């Protein structure tokens, strides 16, 4: 994605998070560009959008997203892009084709034919693709007007998975019915069946994104096996790896059964290394269910988890109750260490959203990850992984686990009319408030005796007497405006603590 596209995305994402107008100064700050650029960017977004302006502007107030249009826009956006190819999209498509057929060479003319590009462009594309493939230890070979990608099977599959975008946007539950995705329907049904088999054998459920990961792996396995004969695999199996696999009879057994099913489905033989490949994916997935609890955590997992919790606790300046997060996080760390070891990458589709929403936490996690990598001599922990870990800590902050609830009193003249109604509305929208009582205003003086520790009074009627407690007058309607004011008040109280 070019940096410009990126900016557009970031801008839209930022606006979508703000209900109200956003000043253009804020946008220049967020995007780190000039005011003019912001203006141009917005104009471009609005011009490109067919159904009228996506971003509304108002003098003196700034910019705001037309939310309804935005949601529609997101839906349309994917389809609209299909008709034309940017250079990077063109390269991606060509690389897809080459990867799926690797190591078979494909005629250059056939590859580039439909894109109507000249020799110099083709030459340039080759350079760029070659560079991209280096990341996966793969080479692009040009011979007699053909191109071929060469390298180890494991690396080729990894590249396929990263490059073919479709694997990053699929939703397992949606797969069966989604006709837009260009998957082979029989393959999809077969693989979903295998996923269910895995879950049944192990009595677990495989949550997102691991289910997508295994799905993609199996789908690629099917496509690859049809296109090239298996004997072309050049990979050597790591001996240690195989030993580990054989020591894990449960997962090994499942991997064997599934690969056997695939053999039957393809009606052709597969090399044993496929069992090992699949086993890696199983070991590296986070599983939910009884099977997991019986497996113990290794001391490395425990150590790494501890370091994350301790370091993040210092960085965020909060006390993290260990029990609350430890098991969850450790259950994530365990397969993550496996992924690192076996270089399996899971895509984090929410990454850009996580980065903007929890920017600070993400930066902190990234730093702790660096520290962890050094301390435990692990490979670099990438942003996708950091994004997942960020969510564990964001959850703590979001659920205000470290903030005790605010003791709140609700009042009106009788203590029985609008106040009761308000109580229901408030507790629905603001779980961080603990409503201790509903009272009549004439019983004000009883507050001190009965509820000395109350921190906030919400009232539907104006109060004459001054009280040394946070106080907010809200309407019984509990409008958006009221909710915003209450949110501010809550933040004020948190700050004072």
């Amino acid at each position, binding site marked *: 994605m070019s940096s410009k596209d990126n900016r557009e995305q970031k801008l839209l994402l930022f606006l979508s998070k703000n209900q109200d107008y956003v000043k253009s100064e804020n946008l220049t700050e967020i995007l780190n560009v000039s005011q003019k650029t912001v203006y141009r960017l917005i104009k471009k977004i609005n011009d490109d959008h067919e159904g009228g302006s996506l971003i509304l502007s108002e003098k003196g107030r700034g910019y705001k997203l037309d939310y309804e249009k935005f949601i529609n826009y997101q839906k349309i956006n994917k389809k609209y892009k299909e008709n034309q190819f940017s250079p990077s999209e063109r390269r991606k498509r060509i690389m897809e084709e080459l990867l799926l057929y690797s190591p078979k060479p494909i005629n250059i003319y056939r590859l580039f034919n439909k894109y109507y590009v000249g020799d110099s462009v083709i030459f340039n594309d080759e350079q760029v693709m070659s560079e991209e493939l280096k990341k996966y230890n793969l080479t692009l070979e040009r011979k007699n007007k053909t191109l071929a990608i060469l390298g180890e099977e494991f690396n080729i599959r990894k590249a396929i998975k990263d490059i073919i975008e479709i694997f990053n946007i699929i939703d397992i539950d949606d797969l069966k019915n989604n006709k837009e995705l260009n998957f082979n329907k029989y393959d999809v049904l077969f693989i979903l069946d295998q996923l269910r088999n895995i879950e049944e054998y192990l009595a677990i459920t495989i949550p997102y994104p691991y289910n997508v990961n295994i799905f993609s792996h199996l789908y690629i396995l099917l496509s690859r096996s049809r296109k090239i004969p298996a004997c072309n695999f050049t990979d050597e199996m790591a001996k240690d790896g195989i030993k580990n696999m054989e020591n894990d009879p449960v997962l090994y057994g499942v991997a064997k059964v599934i690969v056997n099913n695939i053999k039957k489905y393809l009606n052709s033989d597969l090399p044993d290394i496929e069992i090992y490949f699949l086993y890696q994916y199983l070991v590296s997935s986070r599983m939910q269910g009884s099977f997991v609890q019986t497996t113990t955590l290794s001391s490395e997992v425990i150590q790494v988890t501890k370091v994350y919790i301790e370091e993040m606790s210092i960085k965020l300046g909060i006390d993290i109750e260990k029990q609350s997060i430890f098991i969850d996080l450790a259950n994530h760390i365990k397969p993550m260490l496996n992924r690192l070891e076996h270089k399996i990458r899971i895509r984090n589709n929410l990454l850009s959203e996580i980065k903007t929403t929890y920017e600070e936490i993400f930066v902190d996690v990234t730093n702790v990850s660096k520290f962890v990598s050094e301390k435990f001599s692990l490979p670099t922990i990438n942003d996708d992984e950091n994004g997942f870990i960020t969510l564990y800590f964001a959850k703590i902050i979001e659920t205000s686990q470290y903030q005790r609830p605010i003791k709140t009193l609700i009042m009106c*003249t009788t203590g029985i009319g609008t106040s009761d*109604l308000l109580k*229901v509305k408030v507790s629905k929208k603001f779980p961080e408030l603990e409503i201790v009582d509903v009272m009549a205003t004439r019983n004000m003086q009883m507050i001190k005796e009965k509820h000395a520790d109350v921190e906030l009074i919400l009232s*539907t009627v104006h109060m004459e007497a001054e009280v040394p407690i946070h106080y907010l007058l809200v309407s019984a*309607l509990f409008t958006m405006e009221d909710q915003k004011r209450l949110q501010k008040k809550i933040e004020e109280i948190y700050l004072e603590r």
Partner: protein
Amino acid sequence: MNDNSFYQVYFNCELETKKEVHNFISNIVCQNNISIKEEVVNQLIRREKAGSTLIAEHVMLPHIESDHVKNSQIIFIRLAKPILTWDDHIEDIRLLIVLLLKRSESEHIKKKISLFTRTLADEEYLNRLLNSKEKYNFEQEIIRI
């Protein structure tokens, strides 16, 4: 539904102003004593001055606690025609739910009333009350509570 029942429904009420509504309520509390009626009206006015009792679009929840209330009651007033200007801020009122609370009411009744007010947080429910065309349907909604 007789006069003593806890819930009372006045369907298609021909009331056209806030003042008429207040008088109507005071009449329910007490039919012959003018000074008591006046006091009830004043109490209603004071409550509204202290804070709006609008609980949803088109719906108000006037409520008072008074020695003059003999039996606590919840009264539904479905207006025949909307009151387009209630006061300077509030417009287009179609339904009033009035809580009349006897002073020092028993905990049991208080609980009953507070349970009822909580159901009003359900917008769907309010919409059904607002949109029932027949008195019978309207009453059915209330009985269901």
